[in-house]
């Protein structure tokens, strides 16, 4: 695999920023008080959650979202590993002597 870094950087620069996953279907309460703090490594206490602020169906939606998120993360990780394993190509250099 060969990557032209200058082309890669200009494509990244041109790309529009967008969310990698749509979280609009997930309960905002669960995103704000459970999922995102958990992913940031914060402690979430069971007795501090408001169990009236979400439903069992919201929990099922969250599980689906987490499953999809895990799939996306695995794909990104696989690509990153592929990149890391590739051997850097040397540019031809002019001989001076």
């Amino acid at each position, binding site marked *: 695999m060969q990557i032209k870094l200058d082309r890669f950087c200009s494509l990244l620069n041109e790309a529009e920023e967008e969310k990698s996953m749509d979280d609009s279907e997930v309960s905002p309460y669960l995103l704000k008080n*459970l999922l995102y703090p958990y992913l940031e490594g914060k*402690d979430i*206490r*069971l*007795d501090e959650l408001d169990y009236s602020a*979400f439903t069992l169906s919201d929990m099922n939606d969250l*599980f689906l979202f987490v*499953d999809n998120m*895990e799939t996306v993360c695995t794909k990104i990780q696989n690509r990153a590993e592929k990149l890391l394993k590739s051997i850097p190509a040397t540019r031809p250099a002019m001989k001076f002597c």
Partner: protein
Amino acid sequence: MIEYARQAFDAVYLCKLLHHYGKLDGMDLDWTVHEDLWWHMSFEALQNVSGACWVECLDMENKYYFSDPAMMEYYRLCREYCRNFGVSLKRNLFMQKAEEYVDRLLGSLCSYGYGWTLHTRINHEWASGIVCGVEDHFSAYMDLIEVLLRIFLFYETELEVLKQALSDKNNEKTRKEAA
């Protein structure tokens, strides 16, 4: 972190489940969410699904006995229904309905290694109940908890229907006697 999230959130799901059925108060919530918490809490949750629970821990199996005041009252009134309506316990529609419901729900769990027996006696305080044997390789604890919550809610709801049927019968009897 994401790979542990699903398992960690099972504990939150369990709490929400108990909250939904009004049984969260008896649970110890002094915990931080983590991936092993669910297993720790499932044992305590099983003891909270009904008004009374006994556990016998054997070598390869745990045996639970679940009973509840609403269930006891239900089976006591089933006997009264038999007397008032002149039917046998076996032909009592309320007895049949409850047995079918318990069997259908407990039979629907997607796991091997469990069994149950429904007791409908009323000869002592907790004589009516469900004996549930769960072997080590049983894997549907969350479903079992949910099913038991639904079963004990069924007894609470159907108790009111049974009371109404008995009350209607008594009113009818009084009217006939007055006439």
